[in-house]
């Protein structure tokens, strides 16, 4: 093997568990120093003032640095290994974006600074909007939504307000595929819609007949990813959007899978009215261990005035904020995750036309290649050409050897790879969903497939105890029942539990 995983060293350090920062605390130690107060002291009298010091750990700066550095060595990341994680687009995050995001006034502007003094920041948002609407085929965008789920809610609230203003408040049904991400139905519910599920056909696409039967005068809209969560391009997308539009509904593009089609085709041309993008997926901003992301929402021109405001506009004097007239209202305290948006712009500028035109193609090439290689080891869920990701299943291995998708994922961890996404989409039994992204080499893809083959052979061995995997990591499989039952969510909780039991 050549790269990643088994061939290089295992990325994580184990050994004895790291104490908490609280266990490292000793009275009187401190890392912080402040300048001496340079104004005369006055007596402060306010009934809200406390008489004692707050409860915080007391550690030296060196202890602090060692503690968090040791924790870093116990954490997998894009910079240390391969995440074939379906639906998550864990591509390389360019280091150069860190430099730009750290530039003085980008990093340190107060969000209430008037537009006159933040022309650079507004230019960043304006330029990114231009890229984004070109890539998605839309007309206007907001950067307030700080994540994809917030983008979904933004889009749904726009649909709601648009329908209300057009006297169509009766339209309360949002149609969501049974293969959709959980955020889709959760967001629809939060926006006050009824969730109606449309089934998936045998080829893995929206069941058109079922869709026709579900659409009626109460249909407010449809939420869809294309390619869908099975990694397949919805070939009948124009028919789907016509069915919804003919009934006065709007269609919403969940940008989770946008990486597959950048430079290939555009949601706007497929009839989508609203699109959210995940800058932390498609446009290479780091996932940060779970966030921050950024979920800008782009719309067709007729929905511009519904966007959360203010949005950036360019006029003869430069850039300014504009408040859309029928805005759904703010989705974020200020301008969304600005520094994430900036990083995405850096990525787009570096790629430029050459890189963006072929982005989706290389993402699909890697996935199609990996699916071809992996299909010789375990069956794929659908016999269709995949886009940027694909789903395989170990349901046969579960029957023959009680090997679950979960076990395969855990065994892969041992070999230096992140697990693929498992048990998603929900409609596929024992699903393993792979998304390699365009930034991995063919060698790494080969290594992953080879490793998968080896561990599946290994797991079928006679005296194998599946629960023992992973074996070579800082910790083994966690007991997930204890914290859920006893709420050991705070330091001291677990020790207290041990004392009382």
């Amino acid at each position: 093997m050549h790269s990643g995983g088994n061939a290089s060293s295992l990325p994580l350090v184990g050994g004895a568990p790291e104490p908490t920062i609280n266990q490292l605390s000793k009275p009187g130690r401190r890392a912080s120093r402040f300048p001496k107060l340079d104004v005369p002291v006055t007596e402060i009298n306010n009934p809200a003032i406390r008489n004692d010091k707050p409860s915080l750990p007391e550690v030296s700066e060196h202890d602090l640095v060692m503690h968090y550095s040791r924790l870093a060595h116990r954490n997998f990341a894009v910079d240390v290994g391969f995440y074939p994680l379906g639906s998550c687009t864990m591509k390389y995050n360019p280091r150069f974006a860190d430099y730009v995001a750290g530039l003085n006034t980008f990093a340190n502007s107060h969000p209430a600074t008037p537009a006159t003094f933040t022309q650079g920041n507004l230019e960043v948002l304006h330029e990114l909007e231009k890229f984004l609407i070109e890539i998605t085929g839309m007309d206007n965008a907001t950067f307030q939504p700080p994540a994809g789920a917030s983008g979904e809610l933004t889009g749904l609230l726009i649909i709601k307000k648009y329908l209300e203003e057009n006297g169509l408040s009766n339209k309360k049904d949002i149609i969501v595929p049974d293969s959709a991400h959980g955020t889709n139905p959760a967001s629809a519910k939060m926006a006050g819609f009824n969730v109606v599920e449309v089934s998936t056909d045998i080829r893995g696409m929206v069941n058109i007949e079922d869709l026709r039967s579900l659409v009626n005068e109460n249909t407010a809209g449809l939420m869809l990813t294309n390619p869908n969560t099975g990694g397949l391009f919805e070939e009948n997308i124009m028919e789907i959007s016509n069915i919804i539009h003919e009934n006065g509904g709007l269609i919403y593009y969940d940008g989770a899978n946008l990486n597959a089609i950048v430079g290939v085709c555009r949601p706007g041309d497929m009839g989508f009215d609203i699109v959210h993008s995940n800058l932390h997926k498609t446009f290479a901003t780091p996932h940060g261990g779970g966030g921050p992301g950024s979920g800008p929402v782009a719309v067709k021109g007729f929905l511009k005035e519904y966007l959360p405001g203010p949005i950036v506009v360019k006029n003869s004097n430069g850039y300014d904020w504009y408040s859309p007239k029928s805005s759904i209202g703010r989705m974020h305290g200020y301008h969304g995750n600005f520094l994430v948006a900036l990083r995405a712009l850096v990525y787009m500028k570096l790629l430029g036309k050459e890189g963006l035109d072929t982005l989706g193609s290389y993402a699909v090439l890697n996935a199609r290649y990996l699916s071809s290689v992996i299909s010789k080891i375990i069956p794929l869920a659908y016999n269709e050409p995949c886009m940027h990701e694909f789903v395989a299943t170990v349901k046969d291995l579960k029957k023959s050897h009680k090997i679950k998708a979960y076990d395969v994922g855990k065994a892969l961890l041992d070999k230096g790879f992140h697990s693929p996404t498992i048990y998603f989409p929900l409609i596929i039994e024992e699903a393993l969903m792979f998304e390699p992204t365009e930034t991995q080499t063919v060698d790494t893809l080969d290594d992953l497939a080879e490793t998968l083959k080896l561990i599946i052979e290994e797991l079928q061995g006679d005296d194998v105890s599946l629960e023992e995997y992973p074996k070579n990591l800082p910790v083994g499989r966690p007991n997930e029942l204890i914290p859920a039952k006893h709420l050991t969510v705070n330091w001291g909780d677990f020790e207290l539990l041990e004392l009382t039991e």
Partner: protein
Amino acid sequence: MFVPHSEIDLKKMFEELSISSLDDLFTHIPSTLKLNDGLNVPPTLSELESISHFESVESKNTQNLICFAGGGHYDVYLPHTVKTLTMRPEFMTSYTPYQAEISQGILQILFEYQSLICDLTDMELANASLYDGATSVAEAISVAINKTKRDGVVVSNGFNPNTKEVVNTLVDRSKFDIKYVDLVGYMFPEDYIFTEEDAAFVVSLPHYEGSAQDLTTIVKNAKAVGVITICYIDPSMLGILKTPGSMGFDIVVAEGQSMGSPLSFGGPTVGWFATKKELARLVPGRIIGETRDSNHTKTYVMTLRAREQDIRREKASSNICTNQTLNAVGSTIHLSWLGPQGLYEIGYQAIQKASYMKQKLLDHDINISNPNNSLREFIVQTSKPAEDVIIEMGNKGFLAGIKYSDNEILVAVTEKRTKSEIDKYVTSLQEVDNA
């Protein structure tokens, strides 16, 4: 760019797939949808070229405005140690820690984050972050509504107007009645009467206007009729103010920017959320728990997952998925760097410097609307329109504050401001406003 495929790689991959070009990958996509000429975007830039591009864009921002604006986001000193540790690539480029065995670093830090926030606020359970302060207020209201099944929401008017706008967006006003209660003398009225229709009482400590009060009695009155009480705090004042828990609050939320995140033009920052264990199953977002692995080794893991959208779908407690983990890591490391004395000093020095500044302004015949019960933030009166004053002060190198009303500016002082900066601000303001 960042695509590693060599000609040799492509040949191998094309052979495996029996194709001869990248276009052959998309024969199943309707040709009418395909972009034949590609995207209308500028050509690629090398890193070297893009340095000058972005440095030039950055230079269009007015440089080095001395920050006297607050309203939730504060120019607190962010140590390099905190910044560099937070931005370690093992944290920054990692995914959500669903795979506990390879994510103990992030999981333990988030567990420490939850614990630190509980200790600081006197709560029992914190989540692993929400988007920001404003959305955290809305999420807390949603918890209260779900808990009480009531439809009234009592919100103090002493909030950043943007926060109120977020609440108005996210809480369905066709179903729930949001009552904004005016402050009286910059204080929430002690004699406010809550009813059994009220689900939530939301108040800020200190108020947006900078005034602070002990809210114990008001909280007691609200809880007496079953209202869930929610306190929005300024984390950088936690070293000096009484804890929300000691005042009896059920839920604490905060804009956590001042702990561990640069001002960032407002984002990414972090929304803190902490509560009592009895509300655990209604809490939005991820929660980390401590457990043991099969060898009885200490292990951290995401827990109470059955509340979340990927499992409960439309019945989830919230739609939140991606959160602000890296900013929560920043909060954890910053709080640990500060320790009890450091957090105290941030609050103490800010209040001392604000007191000095208020006196100085009064000495220069500039009026303050709430001189007596305000702490680090207060409202300065202007004779010229506040907007014009802010622009003119900007031209003199100061971010004067946030426009509060036509003739009032909300001014914030942090521990970073020096006596000399304050003195210059006061004389500049006098010049600007009297000119």
